[in-house]
């Protein structure tokens, strides 16, 4: 008997069904846009798809009239720099603290409750404090990302270290490994790919914190531009920027996944791909 759970799309079908939601969203946008544009040809809320191309060309390919900069590249560079620094510092913190908390009982006793409490502080709530302590420059934006992402990474890694089979550590000890050797030869190789997976999951929040920080005070950056042109409702610039941010985030996620597959092939053994 034919049941719907047993019907499978063919190879072409997969492409078609995958493309369908994108297509539907595009058509939906075009229709809604033309309905509004019919009522008001200068409507800014849902501009024509062509005006996206025009805005992108203006921002990415033409120098700005006032500063002479290619705005989109300047913005992208500034944002990626902040994001990279913030995530980098957070990852390094997580590596050191997470391993120590997970592996060394004294460090766990000392730091675990503290990290647990800090991770519960909503970063956006203390943003005004961060600005006063770290100033309005680059530092406070990077600190916001670190503050928002690091506690999660630390706790996640500590938990995963704690999940290591006790037998592995005991076996290494009976083979004569020092604590340092256990860290380097037993724990790190298993933890690095998991840390990278955790960083992949933090990409979303990291972008959120980056853009929030840039919304509050900045002179360039992807979030800055969005909040600046929001003042005169330039959706033709905002929506392509959103698409660009999505693409950048998607690419960095794919890049990290590739790093994991390339350098830590053993992670795949025993678990499905994510």
């Amino acid at each position, binding site marked *: 008997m034919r049941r719907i759970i047993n019907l499978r799309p063919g190879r*072409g079908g997969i492409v078609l069904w995958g493309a369908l939601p994108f297509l539907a969203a595009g058509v939906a946008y075009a229709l809604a846009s033309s309905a509004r544009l019919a009522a008001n040809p200068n*409507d*800014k809320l849902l501009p024509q798809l062509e005006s996206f191309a025009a805005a992108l060309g203006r921002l990415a390919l033409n120098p700005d009239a006032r500063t002479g900069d290619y705005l989109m590249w300047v913005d992208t560079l500034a944002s990626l720099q902040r994001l990279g620094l913030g995530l980098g510092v957070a990852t390094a913190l997580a590596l050191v603290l997470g391993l120590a908390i997970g592996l060394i009982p004294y460090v766990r006793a000392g730091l675990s409750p503290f990290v647990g409490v800090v991770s519960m502080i909503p970063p956006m709530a203390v943003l005004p404090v961060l600005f006063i302590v770290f100033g*309005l420059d680059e530092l406070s934006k990077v600190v916001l990302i670190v503050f928002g992402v690091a506690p999660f990474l630390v706790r996640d890694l500590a938990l995963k270290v704690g999940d290591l089979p006790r037998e592995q550590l005991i076996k290494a000890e009976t083979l004569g490994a020092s604590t340092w050797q256990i860290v380097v030869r037993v724990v790190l190789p298993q933890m690095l790919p998991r840390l990278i997976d955790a960083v992949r999951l933090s990409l979303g929040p990291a972008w959120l914190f980056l853009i929030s920080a840039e919304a509050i005070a900045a002179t360039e950056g992807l979030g800055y531009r969005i909040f600046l042109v929001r003042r005169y409702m330039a959706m033709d610039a905002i929506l392509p920027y959103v698409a660009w941010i999505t693409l950048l985030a998607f690419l960095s996620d794919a890049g990290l996944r590739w790093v994991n597959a390339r350098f830590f092939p053993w992670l795949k053994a025993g678990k499905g791909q994510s």
Partner: protein
Amino acid sequence: MRTLFKSAFVVLGLALTLTMTAAQSPAVAAEKKSFKIAWSIYAGWMPWGYAADSGIMKKWADKYGISVEIVQINDYVESINQYTAGAFDGCVMTNMDALTIPAAGGVDSTALIAGDYSDGNDGVVLKDGKSLAEIKGQDVNLVELSVSHYLLARALDSAGLSERDIRVVNTADADIVSAFVSSDVTATVTWNPQLSEVRKAEGAALVFDSSRIPGEIIDLMIVNTETLKDNPSLGKALVGAWYETLALMRDGGAKGTEALTAMATAAGTDLEGYKAQLATTRMFYTPAEAVAFASSPELVKGMDLVRTFSFDHGLLGEGARTVDAVGIGFPGGTVLGDAGNVKLRFDADYMRMAQEGKL
């Protein structure tokens, strides 16, 4: 494969129908009975909140057989965007924002009421430095592309400087005060109530304020032109309620004090604080003053400066090739810019009705 395509078409068709129904068309003009007006907190706009709470608005709406809902929006720019998108029939905003957001966005808008102009409510504050010339080379924290930015441009102009001599740092208005406390902020431009807080900082000096450019930063009640044309009773009810509330503010007696105190509380200050803010706001308490201002050549001159600034900063939109792209109409038929594309209209008719007691 055929069934596959068939179902694909069904899905597409469904999506289409959904969007057709979801695509709300902006502000369809026709005679209607209920209206929504947006306002946000600012010294010169507090009367709207009071008119709504005290029942004055309802009284006037009832008189013309309509209903008017006055909605407070916490985010000023968001309220303008909502109005521009068609969610409100009217909204309070400054003359510059009226030009650059709804008018440049093709929404034909009428300045129904000229409420006041900033007469010191916006200012440039330096942390170390006693004169405007010392701003040279500094980072200036302000809400970029707002009236603060405009005020800065006018200030720099007056000191023979240009925007190239400083660096503008976009800073959210809600964070200006805490930003000014941090060590790396040395100069800011902002408006009240933040301005009065910023001035309290150690060593802070007010080096330029809007009293030097009177009549250029104007606070308006903007309504959709078509809605107003089809529903004159909306204009009459709003103007009637506005001047009744303003008359109450000038009433020195207990009722006046009560109204002012209510507005002060709503603005997050006390009676003294609110009176201080009103002192740097040139309110047009009577319709006669507002009509005179709206019909004056100074308004045309001020709007010319504002539209030039807006064009230079790209605020008139991509379609704007010249400063004349968006036309501005004034009482008496004067037009600045493209007369075939007038999208911002200053109107004195309804205020004149109030002046002549015809409401």
